[in-house]
């Protein structure tokens, strides 16, 4: 498989604080990879550095084989690296339709119309609420909208930051099923999660982040059986 995203020795932080010390992560075309770690491990900082909302201080990032270290978000979105951020970040004052439409901001109008129909096909509940303000949706619906908005951008790689956070167990199941379905259609996914058990179930490979560094990586099956990991994250 060809590497789609390659991050090597990435260093990033805010002000005086260095959060990512040296992080290397790779995602291949069509692959589903999980980035695990507890709260404060640096997962969200990693996402910001990759998406271009935070300038990296060192290291290298390649996307689809091209050097994209420090590239602006506008460019990364245009090239298909799409992030669905933690906390959904939908536009509360805009309708569901407008939220989705803005998801395709860097795409042509004709394709946006097609993509809107496709997203509504995936999330019929959003289709029923197209004229409703996004701020009035439930948490689960907002998460669907955030993912739908990401799909409107025609991603080659979809980075999902804590998509299961704050959802009911039933919705979490639904969400992981959906992620699996998107991947089955060939979409590469980087799943950034605290929910270790379910993430390892659907991912092919996984990385474990601690204090701004990758401390373990490998196939999801191998990590599931790693005694140290079990103790630290699975409470077994």
């Amino acid at each position: 498989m060809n590497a789609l995203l390659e991050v090597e020795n990435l260093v990033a932080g805010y002000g005086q604080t260095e959060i990512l010390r040296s992080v290397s992560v790779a995602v291949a075309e069509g692959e589903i990879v999980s980035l695990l770690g507890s709260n404060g491990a640096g997962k969200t900082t990693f996402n910001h550095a990759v998406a271009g909302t935070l300038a990296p201080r060192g290291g290298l990032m390649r996307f689809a084989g091209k050097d994209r270290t420090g590239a602006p978000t506008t460019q990364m979105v245009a090239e298909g690296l799409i992030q669905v951020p933690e906390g959904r970040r939908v536009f509360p004052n805009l309708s569901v339709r407008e939220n989705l439409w803005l998801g395709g901001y860097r795409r042509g109008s004709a394709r946006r119309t097609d993509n809107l129909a496709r997203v509504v096909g995936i999330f019929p509940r959003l289709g029923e609420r197209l004229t409703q303000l996004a701020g009035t949706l439930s948490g689960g619906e907002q998460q669907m909208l955030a993912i739908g908005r990401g799909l409107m951008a025609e991603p080659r790689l979809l980075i999902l930051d804590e998509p299961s956070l704050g959802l009911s167990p039933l919705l979490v199941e639904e969400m992981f099923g959906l992620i699996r379905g998107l991947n089955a259609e060939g979409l590469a996914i980087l799943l950034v999660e605290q929910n270790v058990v379910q993430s390892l179930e659907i991912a092919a490979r996984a990385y474990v982040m601690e204090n701004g560094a990758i401390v373990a990586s490998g196939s999801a099956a191998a990590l599931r059986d790693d005694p140290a990991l079990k103790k630290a994250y699975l409470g077994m």
Partner: protein
Amino acid sequence: MGELGIVVPAVLAGLTTGAIYALVALGLTLIYGVLHIINFAHGSLLMLALYAAFFLKTLWGIDPYAAVFVLGPAFFALGYVLQRGVIWPASHGQDSMILMVTLGLSIVIDNLALALWTSSTRTVDLPYAFAVIDLKLALIPLPRAVAFVAALAAAGLLWLFLARTDLGRAIRAVAKERLGAQLVGIDVRHVYAMCFGLGTACVAVAACLLLPTFYVTPQVGHAFVLVAFTTVVLGGMGSMEGALIGGLVLGVVETLCGLFLGESLGQIGIFAIFILILLFRPTGLFGGKSA
């Protein structure tokens, strides 16, 4: 009945002034709502636009109403460049510093105007300045009627732009959810500069509509910007419909207070409302609603 004969013309006159207040306030509230900064240079830019319209008339004979189509785009460009080239770089993106930068800008612009054009009061002579329209209930000076209609039309165009265009949607998205907007590929700095440009274009249009019935001095912006701040607070910070209705209300309040308390006391009503709103409804009439 005699009372009504005085009140109706006063209310109509107030609405025409109020439409100008609304337009100035719309520019201010657009910049506040999206960039989350208070633009202290707003009044100075209005003054600059009044001078621009004045000189277009006196040097080249361009009618102030025709000047809308020159100064609107020109001031849009000026605002865009000011935000992108001066305000943003000088403030390093920090809100508290942006405040100081816009205040500094206003001082520079005001004093430049004073140095270049002295403090004398200037007016233009227009053939239609004293023409009136007979509405049966009241006579309305033609330039005021034009200002009312044109200011509301400009507000309507702005609303259509924000509601119906992709960039308009992007502006509303950035206003409430900046990170989310970045992540769909919206260039936030461009959106900021566009808003500053649009806000500045609003004062340019207001200046062109104002000139036929008003005067120009380097201090003229202060009176308007104080009322504009009151309008924005009355309507709810960042609310477009609030700014529009707030401006019209304050225009009427001003003329009615002028009528009953005496001409020079008209603005007392405006600032009394300002204080009452701050005391009893600090979020404004439309506060908390989405922009």
